[in-house]
């Protein structure tokens, strides 16, 4: 599946492919229960207690700790300018930004961009493959799961953590802050979605696919999708035609 559809265009998945759905739904349910007991209360507490400047600093730190991987993946995607920008951000923010807690690079006009190995694979035309709900990590697909593995191995901080207690403390701290930050950043939207949706699992699955598509094309405009599978896809033209009958 990963290699079947290689092409030169960046991959954009147009429909959900979920052959493991029964298993995924179980994992989704367990994740929700764990979240409810651990991460959700922590994020609610953080949302209500932490002052804005603290939240801004944590957001900067979390982005900064990921910059080496952003740079590495931009390079793999044949974008040395973006790789240099991410690297420059990392140096600036880690030093004069005081360990990344201040995003001075953005003030200097170098915006943040996240790149991971899943996006790198997609850049070379590899589609997402089957949807997978990972234990604790949540929505993913076969391609992006492989990406998480490669990024883990490629992350300089994880090598450091093998050899140095300081690096390990920094790494574990960053994992904790990352989880807290992203749970906080999504808390209102996910609460809304959970309340309003009829099938929360399916809504998340669709949003994950669309969000990855957007990251893969680096926020560029959405292309007019070519319909790959007539039976599975139903586009706006089909709807207009249906309504005119």
């Amino acid at each position: 599946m990963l290699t079947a559809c290689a092409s030169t265009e960046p991959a954009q998945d147009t429909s959900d492919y979920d052959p493991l759905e029964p298993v995924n739904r179980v994992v989704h349910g367990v994740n929700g229960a764990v979240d409810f007991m651990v991460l959700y209360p922590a994020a609610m507490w953080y949302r209500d207690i932490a002052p804005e400047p603290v939240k801004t600093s944590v957001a900067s730190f979390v982005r900064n700790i990921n910059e080496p991987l952003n740079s590495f993946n931009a390079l793999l995607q044949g974008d040395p300018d973006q790789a240099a920008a991410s690297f420059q951000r990392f140096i600036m923010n880690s030093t004069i930004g005081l360990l990344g807690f201040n995003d001075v690079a953005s003030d200097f006009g170098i915006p943040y961009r996240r790149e991971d190995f899943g996006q790198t694979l997609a850049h070379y035309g590899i589609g997402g493959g089957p949807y997978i709900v990972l234990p604790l990590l949540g929505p993913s697909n076969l391609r992006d799961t492989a990406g998480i593995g490669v990024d883990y191995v490629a992350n300089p901080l994880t090598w450091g953590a093998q050899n140095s207690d300081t690096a390990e403390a920094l790494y574990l701290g960053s994992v904790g802050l990352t989880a807290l930050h992203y749970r906080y950043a999504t808390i209102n939207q996910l609460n809304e979605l959970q309340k309003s949706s009829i099938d929360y699992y399916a809504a998340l699955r669709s949003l994950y696919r669309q969000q990855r598509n957007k990251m893969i094309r680096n926020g560029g405009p959405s292309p007019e999708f070519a319909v790959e599978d007539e039976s599975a896809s139903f586009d706006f033209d089909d709807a207009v035609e249906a309504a005119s009958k």
Partner: protein
Amino acid sequence: MVNSKIAISTAAMIAIAAAWSGPASATGLSSNVVAEVAVETSAANVIQSMADQAMNELTDQSLADDVRRKKFVSLMDRYFAMDVVSRFVLGRYWRSISEAEIEEFSVLLQNYLALNYANQFKEFNGEQFVVGDETQKNKDTFVDSQFVRPDGPPVNIVWRMRMFDDSYKIIDVSIEGLSMGITQRDEFTSVIQQNNDDVGALTAALKAKTGL
């Protein structure tokens, strides 16, 4: 060990956080576009008048919730191609129900959307809605807009419009690159699939949500 270390940085959260809280990308919005467009019926003008009307009618804090929802539904009637949207979110299943059932579904859908979105107008305080450029792509016109908040980055909203009988109607809305129509279609068709391809299960769920 690998799992426990990377454990909690949930991929979904990253995805969704980026969608809602990410910095606005440079979409080249210019607030004076509306003034420059001469034709009264341009797609951007339609969005502007809808926004004006919504701000006038829906943000009044003294409105009862059900009145606000009714006003929201009539705004959708006026500006959205509901016959197209209703069929789109049903996907290929629109074929399996009768014309009357589609009509019923359409009413339920509007009330469901009103339930989810109308109340957001109640909490408006200092936000601004800025209509930007429009782009033509194949049969559709895409109107860029920004929702500017006093506390936080602006939210990019793109309106997908199509011309029906000489007037532009909305057929989809994308918020930060996420299509509401596609999300709703994927969710609704999943509900139908989970219930042995029975559209009735979806209508029943919508009835339960909306109390209709």
